[in-house]
Every structure is written in C-alpha cells, then in structure tokens.
C-alpha cells in the first residue's frame, strides 16, 4: 500500500483500476531544408487543418461538458491565429532553414516558457495550452493521426498532465477520477472534474513510471490523497464511504417535494438566488420553494440603452409564470460605478462600494426607477412577485421609494392598465439599516439580509483582497449580533426576515439561523436540498 499526496479539486471518493495516460508525442527532430518557402506552405496547411480540428473539438465539448468548459478550444484556435506566434515560427524556418515541425515546437516552447515565468498562477497554467496547440500543429505536419485514448472499463486516469484536447476525447462515462503530477487547480482537468462531479488530484507527488495499468487505486478528494494497492481494511473502509456518498446524493434527491420543516414543526422557506430567467431551470430542478433574490441587473448590463418597460414586464412575467405561483422576489436595479453602464451616465469613483449605486441611483434618476416599477407592478398582476430594494440606509429613503411607487400607481390607474401592488421589502446590507431596523420594520413588508455587503461594511474588509484573508472571519460576532437584532426587530412588527447573502448557504450556520428565528434562507440552487436536509434534521 502506497500513499501519495496531491491537491484536491473536487471532494469525492472513488476506487478503481489505474489507467496510465501516455503521450505519444515522439521527439521532433531538427532537419535542414532546401526550400524554406515550401515548409511555410506546409505550415499554413497544417494550421488550417488544426483550426478545423479545434472547431470540431469545441463543438464536441459544448455538447458534452458545456460552453464554459469548451471555450478553451476557442482560445486554442485564437492562439493559432496569433500573428506573433506564426511570425516567430516562419522567421525560424526562413533564417535557420529548418523543418516546420521543429520550428513550431521550438516556438511553442518559447511562448510556453514566457507564460511559465509569469507571477500569476492562472497565466502559468496557460503554458500548457501553448504546448498543446504546438503539439497539435507538429502532429498535423507529420501527418500523425490523433488518437483518443481507449478506456475499456471505468478507470482512474493517471497522467503527467492532461491537455483539454486529450480529456475531451475520453469517454466520460468511464472516468472515475483524474490524478495528475502537474497541473494546477485552475487547469482544465480541474474544471472538468468539478463539472463532472468526480474526484481529482493535481500536483500529485508521484512517479508515473512506477505505475502500471490495472493497479487498484483509491482517490480521496476529501483528504487530497491517492492510495495505491490499498490493503483489505482500507478497501473495506473506502467501499463504505463510497456507499455513504451515494446514499447522501440519493437522500438529497428524496427530499424533493418535501417541506422544509424542523422536527418541532417550524416551517422555513428555502428559496434560490438567480441572475437571469435562464437560471429558473436550476431552481425548479432543485425544488426551491421560491426565488428569494432575482437580480434584475441582467436586463441592464451589456447594452446601449436602458431596457424598456415592455421588455422588463415580459421578463418578470415569464419568471413568475415559470415559478407557477411560488414567490419570486425581484430586487430592483443594483448597479454602481464598478459596472459601467453608459446610459446611466455614472462617472468613475475612487470607491464604488461606498458610492453612487443601487437605490441611490434609482432615487436620483426617477425615470429609470419608474420604468422598472411600472414593469414590476404590471407583472405582479400575473404572478406572485415581491419587490425588494437594495442598499437602503434610512427611513427617509423608504418614504421616497413609497412616494415613487404611489406616483406609478396613480399613472397606471389613470391609464387603465392592470397592476397589483405586491409585497415590498428592503435589503438589510448596511450596518446603518441593521441598527435602525426597529424604525424600518413598520414601513416595509419584509427584510432580506444581504450578508455579503453587510459583512464588507461591518468588518471594513474587501473580500477580493487576498491579503486580508487572515483578518476575515465570516462568522464574526458583530455580524451574528446584527442578524439577531434585525430578526427581532422584524418580528416585533410582524414582518418576516430572510437571509440572501452567501452566509445563508453556510451549512455551519444553518441551525443557528433557524434558532435565531430567521424565516427564509435564499441560497444558490445547488444548495437548496442540502439546507433542507439540515433543517429537517433539527
């Protein structure tokens, strides 16, 4: 029994026969050529062939693993269209009178070294991509056929490193796990493993030549370890763990259609957070009881003018219809200077998080706000829509919001357009709002605590800044006290209180939140069943 450590990219456990992936890239030899121009013609031809192959691989990957993971083949294609790369190879053929195979291999090595030398881990990982495309070119020049590895039985694939072109050709049904010596947690093998929900280790301290096909290996993504030729006791233990994992997945599926209630009969609403209408599929698939945060920004970003009332009305109505009577809480525009949207005319700011954003823009640019409110009130006539206002810090703001809503109601009334004034709540995401939540509660229908911003503003810590990791504690007592305070103040006035930030999906805190009296948790669709399970076990 041998034990190897690696960096785990997906928490899972599996056991099966090893299949060692061997590159069949034989050494490219340097040859002098009489006619460099003829080599360049060959190179261009191989380039065309390579681009066609990459296009085909892209399409295969899109259907198998989705657009996001397939995009790498698009990048490979663009690398082959890179003038600097091509020029470097052609120059070498001309000045040194060498064969095209050698020129592309050397050029690929040079570019790859440039990436390897970069400080950024993500860019370091791109060195492998340059080598992958260069190898493809060289292979096409030699007229080599590209062969996908044949996998006979479900196996643990062990390799020095795996390029996207190599993994895409494997039969996904027969891959139990990936173990590579090189590669980073940013590598495509890692991304693929996460997508396929299979354990994978990268950067594994392992001598591949000591391995042979058919040896039994355990890959433990929880421990970040591979155990080769496990003894009977280990095998037994691992089999039990695999069964347990399978049962967990099956159990979660069984929770579909069940209520989220605690043992003493308290009902908690587990809703989902989404960013556009397309995500509703995941919401239904995971059996969320509603949508607790529908970010309306998708309607506003990446376009030249503000979305029309009609367009918004259709989108909101469609969302409500797809949710078939379940609650859909739509958050009004939450944009700031960090997301440039030209038609809003926002200027650059030193500190967008503390700047002109969200409800502040809406109150200053009532045209934009009114259009959204008209669309929301009209759509509410057709479905169970609620409205939620972001970044509120004062009771005055709530009064101003209510005044605009009243204006809109009057307009719709005069125009004889059908509408309904739905439930309206505010996000509690500033310490200010939390501290005056007793004053805010009588003015609104509900509170939804946005823990991401609340944490950032309370702890004065920017989550994007890795240097601050040491100081960052998402479970900080200040945050917990604020949540408790908001819940108590909401309940005092008979209003429900939810959490829609990342903390809402933190399984370590679920039971504590329920005990605090939180009525609703809105989480990523994939977390819904896990949270339901924890609550049902309370």
């Amino acid at each position, binding site marked *: 029994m041998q034990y190897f450590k690696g960096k785990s990219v997906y928490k899972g456990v599996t056991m099966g026969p090893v299949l060692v992936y061997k590159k069949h890239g034989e050494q490219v030899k340097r040859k002098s050529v009489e006619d460099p121009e003829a080599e360049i013609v060959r190179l261009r031809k191989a380039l065309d062939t390579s681009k066609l192959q990459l296009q085909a691989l892209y399409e295969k990957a899109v259907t198998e693993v989705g657009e996001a993971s397939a995009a790498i083949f698009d990048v490979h294609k663009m690398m082959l269209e*890179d003038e600097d790369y091509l020029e470097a190879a052609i120059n070498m053929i001309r000045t040194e009178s060498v064969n095209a195979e050698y020129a592309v291999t050397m050029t690929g090595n040079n570019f790859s070294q440039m990436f390897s030398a970069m400080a950024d881990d993500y860019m370091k990982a791109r060195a492998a991509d340059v080598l992958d495309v260069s190898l493809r070119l060289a292979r096409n020049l030699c007229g080599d056929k590209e062969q996908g590895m044949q996998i006979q039985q479900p196996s643990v694939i062990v390799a020095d490193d795996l390029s996207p072109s190599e993994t895409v050709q494997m039969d996904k049904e027969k891959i139990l796990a990936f173990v590579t010596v090189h590669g980073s947690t940013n590598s495509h093998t890692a991304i693929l493993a996460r997508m396929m929900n299979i354990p994978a280790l990268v950067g594994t301290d392992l001598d591949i030549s000591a391995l042979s096909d058919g040896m039994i290996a355990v890959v433990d993504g929880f421990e970040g370890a591979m155990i080769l030729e496990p003894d009977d006791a280990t095998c037994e233990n691992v089999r039990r763990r695999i069964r347990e994992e399978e049962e967990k997945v099956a159990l979660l599926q069984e929770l579909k259609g069940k209520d989220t209630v605690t043992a003493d009969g308290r009902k908690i609403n587990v809703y989902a957070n989404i960013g556009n209408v397309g995500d509703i599929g995941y919401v239904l698939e995971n059996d969320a009881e509603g949508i607790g945060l529908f970010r309306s920004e998708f309607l506003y970003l990446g376009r030249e003018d503000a979305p029309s009332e009609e367009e918004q009305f259709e989108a909101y109505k469609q969302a409500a219809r797809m949710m078939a009577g379940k609650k859909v809480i739509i958050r009004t525009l939450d944009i700031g200077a*960090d997301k440039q949207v030209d038609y809003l005319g926002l200027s650059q700011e030193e500190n967008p998080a503390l700047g002109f954003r969200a409800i502040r823009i809406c109150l200053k640019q009532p045209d934009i706000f009114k259009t959204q409110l008209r669309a929301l009130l009209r759509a509410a006539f057709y479905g169970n829509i609620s409205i939620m206002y972001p970044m509120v810090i004062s009771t005055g703001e709530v009064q101003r919001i209510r005044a605009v809503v009243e204006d809109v109601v009057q307009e719709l009334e005069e125009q004889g357009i059908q509408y309904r004034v739905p439930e309206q709540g505010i996000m509690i995401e500033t310490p200010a709002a939390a501290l005056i939540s007793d004053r805010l509660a009588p003015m609104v229908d509900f509170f939804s605590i946005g823990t991401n911003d609340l944490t950032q503003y309370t702890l004065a810590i920017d989550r*994007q800044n890795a240097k601050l990791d040491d100081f960052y504690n998402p479970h900080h007592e200040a945050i917990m006290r604020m949540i408790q305070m908001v819940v108590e103040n909401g309940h005092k006035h008979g209003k429900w209180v939810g959490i829609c930030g990342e903390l809402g999906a933190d399984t370590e805190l679920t039971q504590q939140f329920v005990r605090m009296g939180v009525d609703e948790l809105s989480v990523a669709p994939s977390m819904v069943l896990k949270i339901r399970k924890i609550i049902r076990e309370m």
Partner: protein
Amino acid sequence: MKSFRYTITDEIGIHARPAGLLVKEAGKYESSIRIKSGEKSVEATGLMAVMSLGVRGGQTIEIVVEGSDEEKAAAGMKQFLEQNL
C-alpha cells in the same frame, strides 16, 4: 492619437477568453491599438502578447489608439472593456 485609461473589474484579469475577444475587437479597426500596463506596451491585436501582460483585476491599463478611425476605435474598445472586463 486618442488614449484612455481603464481599470479592470474582472477579478481574474485579462484571462484567455476575454483576451481573445479583445484581440478580435481590436482587429476590427484600421487604427493601430496598443495596450499599456505598467512598463509594458503591446499591440492589442496579438493574443499571446496581450496575455503576456498578465493584467489582473483592479489594475489600470491605458489604451492608445492612432489612425484613420481612431475616434470609432477608441469608443469601440472602451465599450468592449466595460462590457467584458
């Protein structure tokens, strides 16, 4: 000549995919377009060159456009950056 500065908001910076899109966008114009990041300056039409800048989220780059359609090119590049990076 037209130039403007832009601060990358995408967390991982100008990574492979957006770099490719940026190169395609820059290729649409007649004008020469250069990207400056710190001491380095590269043609915006070369994928590997753009990637080699290693621009990360939060860093500010300068785009320098020069040529017959520089007005349009600068506006196009600005819009592209705002929407993608």
